[in-house]
C-alpha cells in the first residue's frame, strides 16, 4: 500500500464519491460540496492570473489606459448580484455575445459550410462515395421543419433519419467506450497507485 499522503487523500475522496453508486450518503454530499468549492477556487486563481497579465500589468506598466474599458465592463458583470444594478451586467454580456457570435459565424461560413460541401462533391464511382453524397443530402433534408414535406421529400428525409440512427448508434457506442475508459483510469489509480494490486 502507498505511504504517500496525497495518494491516500485522493483514494479516500474517490471512494467517498463512488459511494453514491451504492446509496446516496453524507460522505458523497461532503465531497460533492468540496469539489464544487475547489473548482470555483481554481477558477478564481486562473481568472486572477488572466486579469493581472492581460489588464493590470499593461495598464500600470505600459500605460495602456484604454484597457480600463474591458476592466470596467468585467466589473459590471457582478452588477447582477445587486438588484438595483442588475441592468449593468447586460453591457459586458452584450459585448461577449456579439463578438462571440460573429467570431463563430465568420469561421462557420468557410470552414463548416463551404469546405464540408466541397468535400462532399466526390465522384459517384463507388458505393462508399454514393453513401456519403446521398446520405449527406438525405440527412440535411431531414432538418427541413419550416414547411410541409411532399411525398418524395418525406421518403428522402426518412432515409436521412435511418442514417442519423446509425450515426447516433456510433456516438452511443463511442460514449460507452469513453466512460468505460474513465472508470478504468479510476481503477488504475485506486488499485495501482494506492493498493499496488496492479503492477
Amino acid at each position, binding site marked *: 500500500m502507498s505511504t504517500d499522503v496525497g495518494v491516500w487523500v485522493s483514494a479516500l475522496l474517490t471512494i467517498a464519491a463512488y459511494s453514491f453508486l451504492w446509496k446516496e450518503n453524507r460522505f458523497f454530499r461532503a465531497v460533492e460540496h468540496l469539489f464544487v468549492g475547489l473548482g470555483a477556487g481554481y477558477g478564481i486563481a486562473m481568472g486572477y492570473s488572466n486579469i493581472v497579465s492581460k489588464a493590470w500589468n499593461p495598464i500600470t506598466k505600459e500605460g495602456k489606459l484604454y484597457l480600463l474599458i474591458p476592466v470596467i465592463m468585467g466589473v459590471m458583470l457582478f452588477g447582477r448580484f445587486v438588484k438595483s444594478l442588475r441592468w449593468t451586467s447586460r453591457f459586458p454580456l452584450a459585448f*461577449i455575445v456579439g463578438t462571440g457570435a460573429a467570431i463563430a459565424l465568420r469561421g462557420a461560413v468557410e470552414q463548416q459550410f463551404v469546405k464540408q460541401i466541397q*468535400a462532399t462533391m466526390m465522384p459517384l464511382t463507388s458505393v462508399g462515395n454514393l453513401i456519403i453524397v446521398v446520405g449527406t443530402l438525405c440527412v440535411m433534408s431531414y432538418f427541413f421543419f419550416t414547411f410541409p414535406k411532399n411525398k418524395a421529400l418525406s421518403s428522402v428525409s426518412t432515409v436521412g433519419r435511418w442514417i442519423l440512427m446509425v450515426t447516433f448508434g456510433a456516438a452511443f457506442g463511442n460514449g460507452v467506450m469513453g466512460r*468505460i475508459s474513465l*472508470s478504468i483510469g479510476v481503477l488504475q489509480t485506486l488499485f495501482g497507485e494506492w493498493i499496488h494490486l496492479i503492477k
Partner: protein
Amino acid sequence: MKALLWLGNVDRRILYLLMGFVLLVPLVKPMGLPISVSEYTENVYNEIEKLSPGDRVFLDFNYTPGSIAELQAQADSITKHLLRKGVKVIAICFSPEGAMIADDTLNRIYGGAGKVYGEDYCHLGYLAGGETAQGAFIRDPLKACPQDFYGTPSSSLPICKGLSNGKDVQALIYFTTGYTAEWIRQAGPLGVPIIAGVITVLGPAQEAFVQSGQLKGLLVGMRGGAEYEIIMDEPGSAAAAMDAQSLGHLLFILFIIFGNASYFIQKKYGKKPVGGGRSHEY
C-alpha cells in the same frame, strides 16, 4: 426462460459491482489481447514525422481532470514523439484545468529530458474566453499572452522569437473534451496544419473534418492513446487498459442483449415488460 427473465431484472448495484469486477480483473491479470494500429493513428504519426528539429508547434491542453484517463496517454505519447523529433513546443490552454495538466506534462517529458524552459518548450498558460480567445491567440499569440504561466514576459522567451501569428508554427495539436470545430474555424483560414486528440464521444463528429482534410490527423480516446503508445514502442497505461476495455464492452453488450431478450419474452407472454419506457431507477 425464467433465467432470462431474471437476467432482465438484475438489481443495479449488482450490475455496478459486476462492472467494477470485470474491469479490475484484466488490469490485475492482463490477458494480452493484441492491439492493432489504425490508419488514423498512423496518419498522426506520419504528420509528426514530417516535422523537422527546431520546428515549433502549439499544443493546446483543453481537457479537465475528469478526462485524463482518455487523453493523457495521447498527450504523453505525442509530446514524447515531438521530443524525439527535436520539435519545440508552445503550450496554451483554453480550459482552466488544462493549465496545470500542461505544466505537469511538459515538465515531466521535456523538463525530465533535460530540455531548457524558454528555449525548447514554454507554457503560455490559460486564456479565458473560449473561441474568442482562440481567435485572438492564433492571430497574435504574444499580444494574447503577454506573460507565460509563471509570470515571465512571453516576448523575452527565445522560443517565442518571431512568433507573430499561427503561420509561424508548423502545426497545431490539440487535446480536447469539448471542441467540435472551434480550432478549425479559427486556425483553418490561416492554413495551420491541425492534429486533434479527442475523447471517444467526439470521435464520430470529427470524421467529417478528417475526410475533408481540415484535420491532418485524429486520435480518439484511450484506444487512440494505446495505439500511439504501441506505434512509439512505449506501451503504457492505455495499452494496459485495453483488456479491461474489451471485457467492459462485452459486459455492456451482454446486458443489453439480456434486457432485450427479457423484454421480448415478457411482451410475447402478455406480461408488463420491464423497461423500454420510463425508468426512474438508474
